[in-house]
């Protein structure tokens, strides 16, 4: 019960910072920009509010979102925080438990940002196209948010435990993989953006009408989700 209070404090500490507000601002601008500039014509000819367009939207936004998650982890492992650890680890709480709390706090604070992204996009669709069949977006959300979110959460903790400096390197990784089409295969394609790009090069009408993704892609998403969770689990347990 008291651990819940700790979680509450952690979340509060995360979201009452100016960088959190700034993240919200940047991500909101990005949401608007992607929807209004890049996807107004629809993704590869599909409707601007098709699940495909929504997938592309998420793939783009999620790369910057992952950077935000990584930044949160960088703060967890910052020198300033590390100095408080002296006091914290004299309390009867195991390291894994403590990092679990931290991870959940980051997960929740980040989810709040996600929520803003989703609400903004829904609002945009409703206002601009009068579109409100949001149910069709559930699958895109599952495929394009969960894997990169969990990977950034898991990888952030895992690598942060090993060395904070390497954590910084995840920022260019997510940005470049997410925004620049390197034609990366399966698992390396963290945001799914390369897949969307390639997938449509093999023209196929059925693919466009239905929202069907290839088995390999779904597999890679599953693996990423599991990998993210594993990394998180292992990350919690790594002794510093």
């Amino acid at each position, binding site marked *: 019960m008291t651990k819940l209070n700790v979680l509450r404090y952690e979340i509060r500490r995360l979201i009452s910072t*100016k*960088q959190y507000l*700034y*993240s919200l601002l*940047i991500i909101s*601008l*990005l949401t608007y920009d*992607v929807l209004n*500039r*890049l996807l*107004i*014509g*629809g993704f590869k*000819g*599909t*409707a*601007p509010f*098709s699940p495909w367009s929504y997938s592309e939207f998420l793939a*783009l936004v999620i790369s*910057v979102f992952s*950077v*935000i998650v990584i*930044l949160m982890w*960088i*703060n967890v492992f*910052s*020198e*300033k925080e590390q100095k408080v650890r002296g006091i914290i680890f004299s309390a009867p709480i195991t390291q894994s438990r403590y990092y679990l709390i931290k991870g959940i706090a980051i997960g929740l604070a980040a989810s709040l940002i996600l929520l803003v992204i989703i609400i903004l996009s829904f609002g945009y669709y409703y206002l*601009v196209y009068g579109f409100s069949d949001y149910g069709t977006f559930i699958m895109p959300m599952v495929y394009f948010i969960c894997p990169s979110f969990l990977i950034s959460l898991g990888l952030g903790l895992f690598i942060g435990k090993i060395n904070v*400096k390497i954590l*910084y*390197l995840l*920022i*260019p990784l997510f*940005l*470049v993989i997410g*925004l*620049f*089409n*390197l*034609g990366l295969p399966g698992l390396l394609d963290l945001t799914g953006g390369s897949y969307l*790009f390639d997938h449509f*090069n093999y*023209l196929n*009408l059925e693919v*466009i*009408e239905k929202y069907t993704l290839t088995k390999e892609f779904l597999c890679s998403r599953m693996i990423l989700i599991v990998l993210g969770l594993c990394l998180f689990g292992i990350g919690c347990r790594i002794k510093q």
Partner: protein
Amino acid sequence: MRDRVELIWNEVKLLFKLKMVIVLILLTIIFMIIGLGAVNSSDNYALHNMRQTSRIIALGSARYGALFGSVLFGMMTIILLNRDQRKGSKDLIEANLEYYQLIIVRIISLILLVIGTILLGMLVVFIVQTWIYQTVFELRIYLFSYGVVFFPAILFAILLTSGVYLITDNSDMSLLSLAGLYFLSLTSNNYLLNWVQTHALLYSDFASIRPVTSFILYNRLFWVSISLGVLALGLLFKRRYQRGIYESMLINGQKLFIPLAVVGLLCLALLIYSHEPLINSADSALNIEEPVINERVILTKILPDITFYPDKGEMKAVVNYIFCKELAEERIELITNTGLQITSVKVNGLPTGFEYLKGTDRIQVDLADGEQVELEVTYEGRIKYPHVSTVAGYISENSIYLLEQSHWIFEPLTARDEQVEIIGAVTLPAELTAVPVGEITAIKEEAGQKTWEYMLKTRSLELGFFAAEYTQKIFNVAGIEVQLFTSPRHEAYLFQKDLEHYITGIVEYYTQVIGEYAFLDQPLKIVESSLYKTGGHSTANVITIAEYVFNREFTNSTSMEEWRFYQDIELLAHEIAHQWWGSGVEVTVNTPWSSEGLACYMSNKYMEAEFGEEVSFMLSSYWESSVRLMQGKYYYQHPNQVGLLKKDMQTQIATEKLKTELYSIMPLQLLKAEKILGKEQFLQSLARLYKQNLFQSVSYQEFFAETNLTKEAITLD
């Protein structure tokens, strides 16, 4: 001064003690090497498997280096700048040294580090290139790629992040801002905003870098002023005496040069942005509406006298137009290129006024009364593009490429005589071989300049012009003189593919199936062009083929190689087909009816004759899938929604639709017609259509009349 240098030197030494920095350098170099192979993963599929020469791979390596390096070094900047804050040594340092001095020192030492990284990377790339790619290392190209694309990208990243860091006093916010700007650069198709990778995808091996340098340099100029402006803004807002942002600003502002620099630099950036000199957004090419043609005036003759200054990228023109009309005064319009400034307009030798139509690239001129009027327009300057990726023409040091769409010769919007006579002259440095339309009547050389006189009769007023250091090869096919102009760089490669054999085959096939070539007295010129304009083009009796066509390289996968070759041959066959449909017989556009449909269809028939049905079927199945793709598109199905979009989006959607109609629907309809009538008979009726309308135009109706088909009959299901 000595102290400062020592301070910087110490900082650099300190940098090298950080493991992070070593990793950073290594990663950047790795991506520089990966970038060498960027051609094969570029978004433009047509460029894949292009033969990788020094020029082709140099930009790839610089682009990849910039793409990764900019974020890496942006991040390093933050790590470095907030190091004291993180470690709590800020007060300690500030007691010994003015802090902003330290910031400047750190930025400078980072920049030195970047230069070191790039030089080291260049060395590694040199080794990789000579050993693995086995191509010549052209230092000049690398210096440009690394000096103007790569280095500035990282420099901007460093200046922008440190500026934002000083403003926000928060490392997360600075990194997020960097991410935002990075996103903008990668997704924008406004070349001014591509601060990281710049708009150019590849350099041309054929035309080198000059055609794109002005864009890249202007982009760099814009971002130099922005990033310095942001840095100055940062220095203005740098927190002092633990005060807030506002009070700090008041303190910092007392050093007057800081606010002055902020205002000056940011205004400069605004000015650079708003006075962009290279793009003409009012270009006719971007206009969907048809221009109004004054049918009462008939153009009979054009006498263009043009001088090129390739090293400056400029041209000077004196063009005389001869018109016939009724006695009364008439007002006509000419499509110009807004990059070319008009110095004088004379009607019948008398200077007269002219006026630009607002928001367009057209001018209005009043023609005096009289039945024959001579209009002389003198203009000079650089060609402007409608859009960076829509290259209709450029003049550069070692290549000139001017399509009729660039309106390097202003196009009068009047009726035309059955055959407009063009008698022109171009003057350019002697080392360049000029390839004008029509036939060359005389060549004069004087003081290192050559003047090429040429002559042509045309209905369609397709006046392209091409020049480069070409090697020329001449051979005869079916009574036609074929002149093949290729770059000496690619000559060996192209002839290895037995190009001559295929050209002969294509020309013979068309002659046999459709009829004799219309301009037997003129040579058929096939010219290599740069990759800045992809694909091929046919203008009057000149065909251009971009340098990457046939110029391929494969490591393995032979089926891929074969397939690529078929596509390349088909492209050549398509462009040659335009000599029959387009140049010989003008095809009056009535969407989907146009010369494109016929050219696509004919080239497919040639492929069938040369390589068999299987190949031609595979190639034609592409039309079907692209039609189906278009039909599946949302805005195709909901045309009423298009009006809600921005204008450039509307144009884009309309162009896409038009392209599918011209290049895919029409050929499919012709295939269907062929099926209905039988191949033999259908080709015969096309041949009749050609003969009857030679040097004239043929309409959709005439096609139906000739084939006894109806629109409905050939409409696709």
